[in-house]
């Protein structure tokens, strides 16, 4: 319990000398700490929307987007395809991260280029999904299930776009001749972010394509029924 012992220290007493000599080379890089906090912040935002979603799903006017054969996401090949794109993007980023370890700059360039490009493809695919839904008559203000679909996927896409901007910065840095060590932390952070957003998407995918009965079970399990 490192944290606990840190909080029970008695600062008015002298410390043993050994503790003064902190090792400058060790410790988690600050960028990673900041990223962890950022992911926590994003998670909280999404969890809060999940909670409102589950509550709202139990109101009588809520019409789920799946559960009956004629509903748009009862079978969702479209969403499976976008999922495949995002999985591929994540794999590409993982490849970039692996190439950093292996010391291959071309692998890093390839990995982040493909990862960034596929992320943009995913965002475009989401855009077409929104158009598809609107054309089917499932506009954003037709029903709260639709509203949540646009809200969730829109926020997710926005976060992914922010990641792409960060990735472009890394790309430019490598182009300017920065060494692999100099961009290693950034590439690692971007990879973590991509994996996180993939995980988030899988959760969203699962949540948004359930039937009303499943929502009732989840909401009851969360005490929101």
């Amino acid at each position, binding site marked *: 319990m490192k944290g606990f012992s840190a909080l029970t220290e008695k*600062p*008015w007493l002298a*410390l043993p000398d050994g503790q*003064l000599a*902190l090792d400058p080379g060790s410790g988690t890089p600050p960028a990673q700490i*900041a990223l962890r906090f950022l992911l926590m912040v994003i998670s909280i935002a999404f969890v*809060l929307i999940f909670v*409102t979603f589950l509550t709202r799903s139990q109101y009588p006017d*809520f019409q789920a987007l799946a559960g009956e054969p004629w509903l748009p996401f009862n079978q969702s090949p479209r969403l499976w395809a976008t999922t495949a794109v995002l999985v591929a993007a994540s794999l590409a980023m993982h490849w970039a991260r692996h190439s950093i370890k292996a010391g291959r700059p071309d692998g890093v360039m390839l990995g982040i280029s493909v990862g960034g490009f596929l992320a943009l493809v995913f965002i475009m695919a989401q855009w077409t999904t929104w158009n598809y839904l609107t054309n089917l008559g499932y506009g954003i203000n037709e029903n709260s299930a639709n509203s949540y679909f646009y809200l969730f996927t829109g926020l997710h896409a926005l976060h992914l776009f922010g990641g792409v901007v960060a990735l472009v910065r890394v790309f430019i840095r490598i182009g300017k001749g920065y060494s692999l060590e100099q961009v290693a932390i950034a590439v690692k952070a971007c990879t973590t972010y991509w994996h996180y957003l993939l995980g988030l998407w899988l959760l969203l995918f699962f949540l948004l394509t359930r039937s009303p009965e499943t929502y009732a079970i989840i909401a009851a399990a969360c005490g929101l029924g």
Partner: protein
Amino acid sequence: MTHIAVADQEPELHHPRTFIGKYIWSQDHKVIAIQYGCTAIFVGLIALVLSVVMRLQLGFPDQFDFINPNMYLQFVTMHGMIMVVYMLTALLLGGFGNYLIPLMVGTRDMIFPYLNMLSFWFYFLSVLVLLASFFVPGGPTGAGWTLYPPQSILEGTPGSGLGIVLMLVSLAIFIIAFTMGGLNYVTTILQARTRGMTLMRMPLTIWGIFTATILGLFAFPALLVSAIMMLFDGLLGTSFFMPAIVSLGEATDFEGGSPILFQHLFWFFGHPEVYIVALPAFGMVSDVLSIHARKNIFGYRMMVWAIVIIGGLSFVVWAHHMYVSGMNPYFGFFFATTTLIIAVPTAIKVYNWVLTLWQGNIHLTVPMLFAIGFIFTFTHGGLSGLFLGNVVIDMPLSDTFFVVAHFHMVMGVSPILVLYSAIYHWFPLVTGKQLNTRLGMIHFWGTFLGTYAIFLPMHYIGFLGVPRRYYALGDTSFIPDSAHALNANMTIAVIIVALFQLVFIFNLFWTMKREPKSKINPWGAASLEWHTPEVPPGHGNWGKELPTVHRWAYDYSVPGVVQDYIPQHVPDSDVVYESGFDPSTSKREPT
């Protein structure tokens, strides 16, 4: 584990050469802090003027033609929102957080200086968007600072068009700014402390700012989410929060949404927000009390734990703001219980402040007066909170002036007294000059007694049942004439208090222009920030080498030591003892 190489990033420091690089697009935490501080004080003054106008209407209804009911609601709303978010949060964390964190933990700058600069400019943009709402058709929103739907976006509420949109957009920008700043503060405190600065050697100011920042990072998403969802409802016609409703005689297209959901989201942010403001204030007041009483803070560890426990508990009390919205009685019981439990760590803090003063060598300097004043106002506001925390007492008192008096005592007056204390205390560090004491005394007594003259009677009229947010009371048999007389009195007190704030503003300019340089570390403080090679601290703060910390920040009046304080960076071997004193046994040789 701290990271000395991170703290000591001298080679990478960005050295500005031009005026714009130094003062406008600055990446230096001290300049950014001053930018934050000046902007926050500026919007705070606007909010102060708004409160005076509101009070004119309440104290002397029908006397002022230029205040109409819509404007009154708009001023109430903007006063609340500006003071809570754009003034207090920004000044305490953006201003003092930015200035003090790197100096107090012994690093050269924030870990991500560029992000820090962006944080300020996003904040500035959010202020501009907010102020722009005064100039759009319909004016700013008048929905109350809680922005409850459905009324906030329905016609009939002032500012339901562009006003509310600008408010929500401004909040979203503010939250992005806060997140960028907050990531910086947390990472800097965790990763960039200098050698020897263990977590438990940090001054309580840093503990307060650190915990408040974490609260902010975890609570602001709730406001962001509710702002975005409300924007969807207002602009795109979704029904997240909007129920099927008839507005101005016409049915709207909304269907099935839940305004209560908004309230939950809002208060999940709103209650921790109280502590986002209070915890840095708790920290700073602890340091000021200890320094000006020349005594170590009583129960340092308890103080740290209390801060952390209060921070944790603040996330499980939010529904006490919603008792009148209706809830399961067990739910109400739970939230009443957690609310009352918060009184325990808070009371520990108050007792420890008083015990720090006990038998201390109290110097009644201006910062100390403000700090002691805070103990009074905070205890006062806290005690009325114990009443309101109970469901049965809250029901009749809800939406009366009792609530207004309570939250103004506890999170209006109290943090502002601490802010003044902190400004008077750290001004010699920031500018090298000490604010004029005589003017400071006038400012303190006017503010302290004046705010009591405003808010003490307000509890009473609240008890009588005078409702809040009403433009005029009209004919009400249950409100006696004495309540109207008190209302007029309070308004006069508000005007007087507002004028006393001008003394403070005048003091700032007077001191900068006329006062001589003060001596370095005029209060004899032991914490690191006062021991930089240059005062005010130069770019990079620490010269060639970072200080090494050998002790906590509260070694005041140590027995047998010649000087009445030992700075944090002085090793035991350099401490000068009185002749005949043996530090190993803490005894004097018999003479």
